[in-house]
């Protein structure tokens, strides 16, 4: 049934459709100029599909460079045509298809005449996504209760340092891990106290925690860690624990089931948090406090207590994220080693629409961007390494513009509650 659309709306809608379609065509043209023109007809790209000997081996994926890229260009042109003619309802799907085509072509172009371990890249994407996902989960659980926590970066730095120092001094990685988690909880408790009890502006408190965290960790690092590496800054890292049967599956096995405990905990937390937030009464209370605290209060929910609990749990999770950097990755603390991952985690949370599975998926995208720039440097692509390093940050900004779908925060996000 067609309703009589106002002439104005149709024109605007038409123009938007046209612009989107033209943008897609421009992307296709760019792909042609960048990738096809810079390669020769006979080249092939070899993608290794096996990471190590534990899995069931499958043969490498060998793709002829130019034909495959032409196929992707055609896919984009087809999408563009459809968009101009009929309009694609789901922007997310369209963006997903186009991004996949572009990134795949980029990879193929970069790998021309070389070989590139695709499974290795996917595995490293998941690993690099871990701190981002944990930061996103921390931000998520506290924002679901309407408390903005921008200080995740500072929390992760403090937790990372605590992990490495505790781990080295006690010769036990688990002690380090617990120290990190507790540190995260403690710092978040301070944030909660300032923000809930004193109604300090949440952004200001978060920024203060960041400044303090960066300063304190650098201070301790300069004063103590750099001079006593063996006694304080050499914890070792968690071993990779392959899960017995599942790790043998090709491609998925090495990526998901051959990781260390921190990565496994992250995956478990994503699932647990999703279930708790959306399928338990406690999660319902949390979300109520985040959407309409007044109503929740009238029903007898203790708004303040719920917020405290949520922010502290978020801090515990961020502490785990901090532990990743040291006991889960390199085994020592370097100043400013989080490199903005706390903020990228917040972007992942927004992109994932404030739900755990979405946040996890967006963290994977960021992890992929991060891992891409490292692999590109190894492959010796012509682009200077500094520009590749910018990739995760640029992706974050693009994500935040909401071009790929608008996200709605919890309604009471950022507002202190007064009874």
């Amino acid at each position: 049934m067609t309703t009589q659309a106002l002439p104005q709306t149709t024109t605007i809608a038409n123009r938007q459709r046209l612009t989107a379609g033209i943008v897609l065509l421009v992307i296709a043209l760019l792909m042609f100029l960048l990738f096809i023109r810079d390669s020769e007809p006979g080249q092939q790209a070899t993608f290794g599909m096996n990471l190590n000997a534990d899995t069931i081996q499958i043969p490498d994926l060998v793709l002829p460079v130019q034909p495959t890229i032409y196929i992707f260009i055609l896919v984009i042109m087809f999408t563009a045509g459809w968009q101009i003619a009929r309009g694609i309802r789901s922007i997310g799907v369209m963006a997903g298809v186009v991004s996949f085509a572009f990134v795949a072509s980029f990879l193929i172009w970069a790998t021309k005449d070389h070989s590139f371990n695709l499974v290795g890249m996917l595995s490293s994407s998941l690993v690099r996504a871990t701190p981002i996902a944990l930061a996103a989960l921390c931000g998520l659980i506290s924002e679901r209760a309407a408390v903005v926590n921008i200080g995740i970066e500072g929390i992760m730095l403090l937790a990372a340092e605590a992990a490495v120092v505790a781990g080295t001094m006690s010769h036990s990685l688990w002690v380090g891990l617990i120290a990190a988690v507790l540190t995260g909880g403690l710092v978040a408790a301070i944030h909660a106290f300032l923000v809930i009890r004193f109604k300090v502006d949440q952004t200001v408190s978060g920024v203060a925690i960041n400044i303090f965290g960066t300063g304190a960790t650098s201070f301790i690092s300069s004063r103590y860690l750099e001079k006593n590496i063996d006694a304080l800054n050499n914890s070792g890292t968690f071993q990779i624990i392959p899960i017995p049967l599942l790790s043998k599956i090709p491609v998925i096995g090495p990526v998901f089931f051959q990781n260390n405990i921190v990565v496994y905990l992250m995956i478990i937390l994503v699932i647990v948090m999703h279930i708790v937030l959306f399928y338990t009464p406690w999660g319902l209370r949390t979300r109520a406090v985040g959407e309409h605290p007044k109503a929740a209060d009238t029903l007898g929910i203790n708004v303040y207590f719920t917020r405290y609990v949520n922010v502290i749990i978020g801090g515990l999770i961020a502490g785990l994220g901090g532990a990743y950097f040291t006991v889960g990755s390199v085994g020592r603390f370097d100043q400013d080693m989080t490199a903005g991952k706390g903020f990228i985690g917040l972007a992942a949370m927004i992109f994932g629409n404030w739900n755990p599975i979405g946040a996890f998926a967006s963290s994977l995208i960021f992890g992929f961007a991060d891992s891409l720039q490292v692999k590109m440097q190894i492959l010796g692509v012509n682009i200077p390494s500094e520009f590749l390093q910018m990739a995760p940050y640029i992706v974050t900004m693009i994500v935040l513009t909401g071009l790929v779908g608008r996200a709605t925060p919890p309604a009471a996000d950022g507002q202190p509650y007064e009874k």
Partner: protein
Amino acid sequence: MTTTKEVKKAEARTKSGPSLQKTLMGTENALIPVLAVITGLIIGGIVIIITNADAIAAWGNFFKSPGEALRASWNAVTTGYGALFSGSLGKPADMIAGIQNYFATGDSKAMLKAFYPFTESLVTATPYIFAGLAVALGFRGGLFNIGAEGQFYIGALASAYVGYSIVGWPWFIHLPLAILAGAAAGAVWGAIPGYLKAKTGAHEVVNTIMMNWIAFRFSDWLLSGPMKSSGFRPVTPTIEATAELPRFFPDPLRFNWGFPLALAVAALVYWFLFKTTLGFEIRAVGSNPDAAKYSGMSVVRNIVLVMTLSGALAGLAGSAQVLGTDHWVGQGFSAGYGFDSIALALLGKSNPIGVVLAALLFGVLRSGATSMQSLAGIPIHIISIIQGLVIIFVAAPVIIRTIYRIRIGSADETVLTRGWGK
């Protein structure tokens, strides 16, 4: 349903800016920031004590000789803060001796050396003034510009480029051009997240931080590639003499026209914010965007304007640093000016006069911190710890009020969080 409290708050926010006298002499306004700094320094002193080996050893023997423990602690703090003040302000005895020497023998070296710490503090304070103004202007417009760091870098690089690549032009064209280049570059760097916030509601905190990291990587590339001077170090070539901000005194004193320029710009920002219509609009949008929109002000245009001006100011900070003090740009150039300036703006209550005072304080702290590190072995990062604490104290005056038992006055709290954009 507005309560009387909310009405009063709204009134306070929409009134025109505080008069000069009230800002300078209103004790209510200045009390909390001053106490915040003092408390921060006290806690900094405690940190010094607990990280000082002698003091810890002495406290271990507390019950045998308590006086020893207290003496060792006092020693640690006085050595630390003593180094801080002698490194930042100089020793009066040296200054007097130097002046006497100069008048007696005509040799100015001792005098210059005695005054060096003080001029260095002013020189260090100059970029702080600009950067603090940048963040304060942002706060007034309701925006959190954490990108001052990146804008500083980009402005510095732009000014340096104009400074070293143009040869043979007279200073009255070259110098203003270099300054403008820095301001323009910073303005662009600030306008991008501003535009994104205005058009899409993307939160400027995360975007400006991302722009910071992009600026760092971009400058890494520039300094090891296109803008690199010959030689091994990743630095730009030194700028031409015609692009330098002139210095007042002979070497080694680096005090230059950057400082008076900063004061002039602070006065300009004060006038702009509190005496012009555009400034009023900005403050209105900052206090209550919905009301401003309802009265016909374009919130989008104002957000972009504020971020652009804020970026320009931060770019000027980088400009002043390059053209006046360093004369070249190297990696790791900025000593965290961007983040310090947030503390500055909060401490100065987003008022240009307060910002100047706070910047002078931070200039003293920062230039003294290097002495603290070299003379007393205390890492520079203690300043960041003190700053973080000061921010918390200023943002939560309740803490200071509780500690010092002050009655509640009319404190205008900063409220910036509006969620992630609607």
